[in-house]
């Protein structure tokens, strides 16, 4: 009774989140669905480009599988698989312009691929060679963020900088469903809305934060969250590469034309473990996996291509060859990666000399040198 009585005042429509449609342009079976608002944003996608998106997804899945193997073989310490999230990462990653800037979490290796990252750079961190793999300014993508949600503020600040510079590029923050509970992510929305910064909040709702189901973080659709901050929100099928592409383009266009921030919830699913160290059988139902397997992001594009007569054997072979080549390159890069030198431990803490650290560096260098000189072995 109470709920009804206070219904309208309490904005019950949003409370239940019924407003926000989950936009789909390709059904799970691979049919191209029409959507009057989203269609125009992908009307220019040629058959070659669609094939390209397919290839991208196959390649990053292959990268992911290869990295998982490398981890099992002891070549990587850890790996956070993106299996199942290929459409979210390729659809959004391919929408970006070179001068846009990406701030991601640890799971967006597919986005890094779109940015043109060197394949060896992807695994440096996970092999334990470095705290990060690439030069952010070379591919306009910050290195992976481990502190959940922290990068959303970085993206917002970067976007404030774009605005100050009068540029028409955008910043995009990638984060998970779990991250939406962090203060930082919410503060980022406050700042983005207040300054109307050209930033996109791209949330991959993969239904899990390690062992916690998304329902623990929010019992209303995550896309609703942004509305309360005055940020327009889009909810798309995150396993539908076209829908994701369209949504990201909508958001980018808004950002480039002074329209401020946009929130995108890409509804997808983490098909693998949280990381290779995780054992999902402890907390999730095998049925759930099966349901989502039927919504596979790659299979549906394959079906769509098939229906258009584009999924030829040549294409499949070519895509497979590309994926294998990429995987091979990454594996070689990984295995041949030289170990860092001991004294690297002191490098780059500061950009100018620091007396405390210099002293420690000198002492440790003398200490290490002692081992080689004291060859008869004092200890």
């Amino acid at each position, binding site marked *: 009774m109470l709920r009804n009585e206070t219904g309208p005042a309490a904005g019950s429509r949003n409370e239940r989140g019924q407003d926000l449609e989950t936009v789909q342009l390709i059904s799970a079976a691979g049919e191209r669905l029409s959507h009057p608002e989203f269609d125009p944003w992908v009307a220019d996608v040629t058959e070659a480009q669609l094939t390209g998106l397919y290839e991208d997804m196959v390649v990053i899945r292959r990268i992911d599988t290869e990295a998982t193997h490398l981890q099992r073989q002891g070549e990587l310490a850890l790996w956070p698989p993106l299996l199942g999230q290929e459409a979210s990462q390729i659809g959004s990653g391919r929408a970006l312009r070179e001068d846009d800037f990406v701030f991601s979490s640890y799971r967006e290796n597919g986005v890094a691929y779109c940015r043109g990252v060197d394949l060896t750079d992807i695994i440096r961190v996970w092999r334990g060679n470095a705290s990060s793999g690439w030069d952010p300014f070379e591919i306009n993508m910050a290195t992976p963020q481990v502190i959940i949600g922290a990068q959303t503020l970085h993206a917002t600040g970067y976007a404030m900088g774009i605005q100050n510079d009068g540029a028409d590029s955008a910043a995009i923050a990638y984060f998970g469903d779990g991250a939406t509970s962090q203060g930082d992510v919410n503060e980022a929305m406050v700042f983005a809305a207040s300054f109307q910064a050209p930033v996109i909040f791209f949330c991959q709702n993969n239904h899990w*934060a390690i062992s*916690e189901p998304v329902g623990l973080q929010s019992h209303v659709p995550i896309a609703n969250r942004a509305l309360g901050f005055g940020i327009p929100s889009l909810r798309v099928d995150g396993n539908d590469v076209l829908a994701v592409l369209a949504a990201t383009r909508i958001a980018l266009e808004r950002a480039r034309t002074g329209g401020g921030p946009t929130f995108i919830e890409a509804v997808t699913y983490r098909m693998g473990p949280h990381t290779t160290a995780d054992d999902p059988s402890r907390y999730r139902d095998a049925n759930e996996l099966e349901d989502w397997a039927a919504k596979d992001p790659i299979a549906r594009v394959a079906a769509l291509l098939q229906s258009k007569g584009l999924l030829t054997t040549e294409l499949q072979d070519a895509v497979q060859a590309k994926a294998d080549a990429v995987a091979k390159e990454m594996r070689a890069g990984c295995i041949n990666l030289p170990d860092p030198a001991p004294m690297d431990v002191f490098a780059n803490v500061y950009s100018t000399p620091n007396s405390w650290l210099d002293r*420690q560096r000198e002492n440790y260098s003398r200490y290490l040198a002692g081992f080689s000189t004291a060859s008869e072995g004092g200890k």
Partner: protein
Amino acid sequence: MSTMTFGRAINAGLRKAMEEDPKVVLMGEDIGKLGGVFRITDGLQKDFGGHRVIDTPLAESAILGTAVGLAYRGYRPVCEIQFDGFIYPAFDQIVCQVAKLHYRTQGKVRMPITIRVPFGGGIGSPEHHSESPEAYFTHTSGLRVISVSNPQDAYTMIQQAIASDDPVLYFEPKRRYHTKGEVDESLDLSLAPSMETARIVTQGTDVTLVTYGPLVPTARDAAVAASDEGISVEVIDLRSLAPIDFAPIEASVRKTGRLVITHEAAQSGGLGAEIAASLTERCFNYLESAPVRVTGFDIPYPPSKLESHHLPDLDRILDGVDRAMGRPNSLSGLEG
């Protein structure tokens, strides 16, 4: 007596505390079905229910902030921080609320909150997963800080922490979770040594070696190695990092005249500085050489392939012992 791993001992201690006091609740990320990423809370949600083993949304400030509210309501929350490097979002609630509410309310409100923090390195993890943030908390008035180094202490001290009416940071050396040891589960808590006392691990006469948590076994090994060279090292496990039980260290240093402190945390402003300064104040006339610190460097925790160059190990501790002894074969440069 039973043999169990370090991790299992904490689990058993938590279980005991929950059985004995219905006001004890556990909170944290993934501590329920999963039993935590280290399985420390394994099985507890199943046995005590979701209202006592609370899987929380992903927000550390909220975990501590709601724990404060639960403490107001008479509960004794035990919060798990998943990894050392994730405690900082909760820093404000810990420093401004948990630590200060008893003082602020002139003793009217108690904060019997235990904050479990798996800490330290040596497990080959990426950034933020191997930190030693204890000095931030030992410098924060209103908190008690302890660290455990063996299964028996892990078992008893988690219970003592929970029983404390003051907030306690409980630092678990994660790289020792799989170490096995004897645990007397029948031990009467009130008869067990207080969590505020230090413990002499190995007796010795030449050098006092002070440490805590993950480096206690390393220090013990170093003492054995040193004895081969004819140096007798007295190893002390601090157990309590704030306040530190200075009396036994003072007694030891008066005997040995030499002090070495080792910890994984960065040297500058680390706990070693406090120990060196306090012991110098207390035993100046007994010291034969300056207290020596063997610590992590003043760097962010390095990538795992370099961590062995950051973490004090047996050799670096022995080098420190040499320095304290003024031995000419010391490999590193003497300070000053």
